[in-house]
């Protein structure tokens, strides 16, 4: 798609592009290239000198048992959050799609958690499940669960998953509802005339027609879990206890800052870049949202 009528101008288009290009080059390309460069360097303890060490940072990274733990944690965390938030959102969206009275009000009441900052969402959930102060920790105790997310890694994981799902359902709900409303009623009526009940219609007609939306959301959710949940993890568990909620992104942060291992942190950044680029490529390849240029 191109405009057939355009302006002539030699200097003006460059001037118009200049602010964005300048900011992109300074704050995007330069740091990204530095991350790649740094991943091949090793700094001394004072950060004064650095020497080229080839793939040593990567070798050291993949020799670390903690890195595999972080990968495992990331896989568990992102699958749980993605599956749960998509499932819950689909349940609510199918109910909200039923031409109920006050549909707009429901939508508003479902959508607002999207606006809550991840770190704040984390603090809220931390508070209600706090082992000694939490409103919901007490009933758990009474039921005989020795609830303590500050000491028990599984409990910590459950807590960050809940906070992350709570925030993400709103987004998925909006897209599922839009997807459901775009399905022509005639197709569903045809199914009904053929004698298919509501459940059967859902699985054989509605769900397949929703699959582009679902696939799109799948990719968006994985990217969300990878990056935006940083605030939740930092606020709730700081990666603990004993690294049980340290995801790959959290480890980049923790190793670079607290550990001071900039080379290793940069190598991890590069691994993450590759993963994100692959995810984005999949998204563009399979979800027909190609940019025409």
């Amino acid at each position: 798609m191109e405009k057939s009528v355009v302006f002539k101008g030699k200097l003006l288009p460059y001037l118009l592009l200049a602010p964005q290009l300048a900011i992109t080059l300074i704050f995007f390309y330069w740091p990204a290239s530095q991350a790649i460069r740094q991943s091949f360097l090793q700094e001394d303890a004072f950060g004064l000198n650095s020497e080229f060490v080839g793939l040593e940072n990567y070798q050291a990274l993949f020799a670390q048992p903690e890195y595999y733990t972080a990968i495992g944690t990331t896989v568990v965390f992102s699958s749980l959050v993605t599956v749960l938030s998509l499932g819950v959102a689909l349940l609510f969206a199918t109910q909200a799609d039923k031409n109920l009275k006050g549909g707009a009000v429901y939508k508003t009441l479902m959508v607002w958690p999207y606006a809550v900052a991840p770190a704040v969402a984390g603090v809220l959930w931390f508070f209600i499940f706090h082992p000694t102060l939490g409103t919901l920790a007490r009933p758990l105790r009474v039921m005989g669960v020795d609830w303590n997310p500050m000491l028990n890694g599984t409990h910590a994981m459950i807590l960050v998953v809940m906070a992350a799902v709570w925030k993400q359902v709103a987004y998925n709900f909006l897209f599922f509802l839009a997807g459901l409303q775009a399905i022509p009623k005639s197709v569903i009526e045809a199914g009904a005339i053929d004698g298919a009940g509501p459940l059967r219609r859902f699985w054989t007609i509605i769900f397949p027609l929703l699959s582009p939306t679902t696939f799109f959301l799948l990719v968006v959710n994985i990217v969300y879990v990878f990056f935006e949940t940083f605030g939740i993890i930092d606020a709730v568990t700081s990666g603990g206890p004993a690294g049980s909620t340290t995801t790959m992104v959290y480890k980049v942060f923790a190793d670079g800052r607290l550990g001071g291992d900039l080379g290793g942190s940069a190598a991890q950044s590069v691994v993450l870049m590759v993963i994100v680029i692959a995810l984005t490529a999949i998204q563009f390849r399979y979800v027909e949202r190609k940019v025409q240029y």
Partner: protein
Amino acid sequence: MVEHRPLRDLVAYVVLALGIVIFAFPVYVAFIASTYDAATVVSGNLPLTPGHNLLQNYYRAVFVGGSRFMNQPVGVLLANSFVTAIGIAVGKIFISILSAFAIVYFRFPFRKTAFWIIFITLMLPVEVRIYPTYKIVADLRLLDTYAGLILPLIASATGTLLFRQFFMTVPDELLEASRIDGAGPLRFFWDTLLPLSMTTVAALFVIQFIYGWNQYLWPLLITTKDSMQTIVIGIKKMLSTTDELAEWQLAMATAVLAMLPPVAVVVFMQRLFVKGLVETEK
């Protein structure tokens, strides 16, 4: 509707109502906690109805800043959050509407190159290049400044793609007409294109305001002075102490204050919000 069964509608109402209650519960508890004194909150026996310390707690949080671990009143942090969020939204709209205008309405060498340079930024969120970005901001002496909080976060393609998409739907006749009237490109942009783009501008503003307001990792890294911190960071700072010393009632009041502006934006500008959300993902 294919068939109308009252029972099915009832199930739908119940499921949605339950969902809404569960969704609101954490926020409700936070609000309740912000209306009691410290002793009640720490006792672990928080009632489910509001207490009497509401005004006192919010007043102390906003104007005095009680916690020993966060020596700034929340009012200052709120102001920082507003400046950052509005700066990010306005900055992004400004640079991206100009670049989209150049890319759609001009033909010039390296046009596609410029587009791709901008487009690729979609792929790498700030988190994966966090330390090198920090270093540049430090070298430019922008730590603890609003520019440092804002500029690195507006380096992204979403706005440019959104405006490009909208400009493509603007009929060519409008451009021809303003040319016949003798208007140059800037005149056309200002008098014709910009007024037509206002809905898109507003939708992008809503999305970017929420994005900017909710930033966490970046402000955490580059602000060292308490007086430059945003409210989202402030809550975490208030709680980074042993549980017995943390002033939960103030932290929860701060959490409520931190949620209000972005949630209000979503609730009161829902149409723009949905439009922005759906279109920036294309």
